[in-house]
């Protein structure tokens, strides 16, 4: 039974830790499926986290925080869109620039506005997205196994967690069952086909990067207002890049993206759980190694286990009408 309890705890934190990855991963999916590579997920998430922390601190409302995060993140997505769609610039350079701007600006503005060393003030109550208890969670707690799975693992997460997992089938539905999805997939593969079919390539791609902006904004909000109680500098800590890895790992498909993010979340949860406790057969392992484990496994998985990941064919290439 003890093992079962530990398992539930690890899985529970797996869910919490994979949500920002999942939101960022789906965000990247919209952009990259349309042919705009987005290495700036990290920066948009960070800017979103800061905006939500700051706005929630000032207004006292988590919803205002969420709105601010989406606004800022969509703005940065549009900057990336302008650079790569309208100006036909290099998408990697533009993405990296956004990451740098976000990393620097959040700290400077945070210090200037709140004077807490780049943090935003600690939030309480309505300033955060608190845990949401599913019906009968308390009553079912004592039912063996099922009760624990329901009340510990499924219940008691913030609204944004449920939103993130809802976005998985929703994204699948949008991509494969709607006109917008069909065109989105087409423009990432062969923009000339879309152009000659009489559809605007630029407008389609702009809508895709707006979707990306919204989702990275939610991801940032989750970090600042649900997982933490406020913005802390560099709080994304590479999650945007792990999300990109998950996206490649999932070959740009929504459901595999969810499993990839859960896997990375699980590795993260496991490394936290195993810190300091001796492993069977191996003995005590340095903390640093356990912390590095998710990243090491990321490299190994990406290097050897996914087979051929074919990105959208027009990805990274600005669309220019051929002469």
């Amino acid at each position, binding site marked *: 039974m003890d093992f079962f309890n530990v398992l539930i705890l690890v899985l529970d934190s797996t869910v919490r830790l994979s949500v920002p990855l999942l939101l960022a991963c789906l965000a990247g999916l919209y952009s990259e499926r349309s042919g705009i590579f987005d290495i700036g997920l990290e920066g948009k998430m960070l800017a979103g986290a800061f905006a939500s922390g700051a706005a929630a601190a000032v207004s006292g409302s988590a919803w205002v925080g969420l709105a601010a995060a989406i606004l800022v993140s969509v703005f940065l997505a549009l900057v990336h869109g302008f650079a790569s769609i309208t100006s036909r610039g290099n998408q990697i350079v533009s993405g990296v620039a956004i990451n740098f701007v976000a990393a620097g600006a959040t700290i400077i503005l945070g210090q200037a506005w709140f004077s807490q060393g780049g943090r935003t003030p600690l939030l309480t109550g309505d300033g955060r997205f608190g845990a949401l208890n599913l019906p009968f969670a308390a009553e079912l707690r004592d039912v063996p196994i099922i009760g624990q799975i329901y009340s510990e693992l499924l219940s008691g997460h913030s609204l944004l967690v449920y939103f993130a997992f809802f976005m998985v089938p929703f994204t699948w539905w949008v991509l494969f069952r*709607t006109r917008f999805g069909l065109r989105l997939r087409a423009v990432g593969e062969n923009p000339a086909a879309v152009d000659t079919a*009489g559809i605007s390539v630029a407008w389609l791609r702009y809508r895709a990067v707006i979707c990306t902006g919204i989702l990275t904004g939610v991801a940032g909000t989750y970090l600042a207002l649900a997982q933490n109680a406020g913005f802390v500098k560099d709080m994304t800590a590479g999650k945007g890049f792990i999300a990109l890895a998950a996206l490649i790992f999932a070959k740009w498909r929504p459901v595999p993206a969810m499993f990839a993010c859960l896997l990375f979340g699980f590795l993260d949860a496991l490394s936290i759980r195993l810190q300091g406790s001796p492993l069977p057969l191996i003995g005590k392992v340095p903390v640093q190694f356990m912390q590095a484990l998710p990243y090491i496994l990321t490299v190994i998985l990406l290097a050897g286990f996914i087979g051929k990941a074919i990105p959208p064919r027009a990805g990274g290439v600005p669309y220019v009408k051929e002469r």
Partner: protein
Amino acid sequence: MAEAAIELIGINKSFGPVRANRDINLEVKRGTIHGIIGENGAGKSTLMSILYGFYQADSGDIRVAGQPVTINTPNDAIAKGIGMVHQHFMLVQNFSVLENVILGMEGEPLLNASIAKARSELERLEREYGLEVDPDAIIEELPVGLQQRVEILKALYRGADILILDEPTGVLTPAEADHLFRILGQLKDEGKTVVLITHKLREIMAITDTVSVMRQGTMVATRTTSETSVEELAELMVGRRVLLHVEKGEAKPGEIKLSVRNLTVRDSRGVTMVKGVSFDVRAGEIVGIAGVAGNGQSELLEAVSGIRRAVSGTVMLEGSPVDVTGAAGPGDLRDRGLAHVPEDRHYMGLILPFEEYENSILGYHDEPQYQKGLFLDIDKARTEAAQQIEKYDIRPPNPRLKTANFSGGNQQKIVLAREMEQDPTVLIVGQPTRGVDVGAIEFIHKRLIAMRDQGKAVLLVSVELDEIRSLSDRILVMFDGRIVGERGPDAGEGELGLLMAGVEAKEAAE
């Protein structure tokens, strides 16, 4: 005759300093197949892109069925019943046929209903025009001929009455091309208007009712096809008389320079493509290898030039063996006097983003003559490039221009100049005039004959039977990886055609 489906009046279009279309007038009658012919870069594709709304004309008027129209986007063209099959297919490779057909014509925001509607409409079109294709097949798994059929279906699904085809046979096998022509004939019988853009005279003569000739951005003539001839059209295209048959003297074959024995080669999938081929090429002769594409000619060329490792067999160059089954690479063979003009200049012959002079020494760049201490002797490379440009009439004459900016014919001349000017003993040439305009073809043919007359051994591989017949001193026919016959240069087209189809080979086996 019937009324006009399309009228273009005074169309002008410039790209920067280049005037792609000058004061073009064109009238296409309803229910006819109208050919537009011209060399590469004559402005045919630009003109049709203007009609399809892909570009906007700088000035001029377009009338569809007598009504003046403005076509600013492909959507406008589609609305006027104009459909286009582009030279490079505008298909999404990993989509199904159905998804490609409905793209841009989905109707409502949700796909289910529109897909069902498209499926029944597609079935009707397939029945009506004999355009069978599995609606659920994925494009990248279809052969090019079928992909092109999807493009035609796309246009018809959009209600096209006027169908423009841009160089439709460039990627097709002869059988696929014949099938396409039958489909076009059927479309015409149904009252559709077809505009066929091509630079192949034979297609124009075979299928069109009327033909318009373009040269350097201007429309030079319009003729009724039955009242004109290949020679007249060729002259109109280039603006002077063209020698379609090269004049050459008697060959004076010398000693054997290249000798191939029992060569067996597999392709990258592991399929045996060349099955024990033997032949000799002597100094001062051109040996042509004829055959339908895909019968092992490409693999044979690659093995003999050292690009692909042979499974077994021997190759002797000037009497000494070449390790074709082992370590010999293209560089070794080049050092020993074997020059190779590859079949696909874009894939193997040139690096398109490089400047012309860089390509003119490519593959020879590590030879001592181009070294200056630790560095490349750039000045020498540029001087030589300039000389080659002059000698081979490469246009524009600028060694500093990016190679991608030269036309197909001039790119091919860059490759030929590079390989010929290194004074090889054996020259291997694959598809020397593929995608090359008529004027350049004549020039290239003359250069090849000149090489022969200088005493070089020339091995020529081409899928153009006319080319093989007019250049070769001996013709070897390849079928299914074997050489199935050898003929003299006066062999008839029909006889060679039968050999190429493997008829005699089958009879011999029985």
